[in-house]
């Protein structure tokens, strides 16, 4: 089980290697990437910032919860901070498990909890040159990124 905030490119393959074990029959890798459109606006990049210490603690807590609930310690999570371009991976979650149902459920649990409570913020850069902090709780912002 490993979680981390990183300021370099995320290597999904490396996370897959971390969770590989011959006792696992199923692996689910989730990648969140920077989309070119959000809420109908053309996006050119995103700045991610975090309350680093707390974000690291929350990520680790979520991994521990998922491990306990779904019965696997084959979990690796990375979230990238800094300025990302279109298509860059912002978050990667690798979960392996003897059985597929739990691998999917654990993966989903982790991304939903991450989005709900890990103190990370993003400022989108728009094609018109403006930049704005994204507020997923605002009326305009629904069914957005990832």
């Amino acid at each position, binding site marked *: 089980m490993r979680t981390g905030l990183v300021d370099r490119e995320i290597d999904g393959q490396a996370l897959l290697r971390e969770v590989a074990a011959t006792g696992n029959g199923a692996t689910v890798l989730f990648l*969140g990437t920077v989309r070119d459109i959000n809420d109908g606006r053309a996006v050119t990049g995103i700045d*991610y*910032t*975090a*309350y680093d*210490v*707390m*974000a690291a*603690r929350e990520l680790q807590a979520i991994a521990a919860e998922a491990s306990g609930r779904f019965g696997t310690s084959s979990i690796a999570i990375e*979230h990238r901070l800094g300025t990302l371009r279109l298509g860059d991976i*912002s*978050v990667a979650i690798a979960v392996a498990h003897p059985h597929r149902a739990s691998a999917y459920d654990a993966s989903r649990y982790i*991304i939903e909890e*991450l*989005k*709900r*409570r*890990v*103190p*990370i*913020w*993003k*400022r989108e850069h728009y094609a018109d040159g403006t930049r704005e*902090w*994204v*507020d*997923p*709780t*605002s009326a305009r912002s629904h069914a957005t*990124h*990832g």
Partner: protein
Amino acid sequence: MTITVLLFASYADAFGQPSVSVTLPQGATVAEMITRLGDLAAGRGPLPTTPMVAVNQAYARYDHVLSAGDEVAVIPPVAGG
């Protein structure tokens, strides 16, 4: 007591700084801190009336009693992922 409140993202932009000092009586709660912060924020921007708050890097309820030396942060709507 004086509490240093950490600010992030849109809240830091509103205050133009990454933290702000708030003077509170001994035994003050998170709710009192937020009221005081709201006074300081008047006219500055998007601080909502009941933002999320973390004390010592964990989410805290509004009736949580603060102590000198606590690490206090106001948490804008999170948008990770």
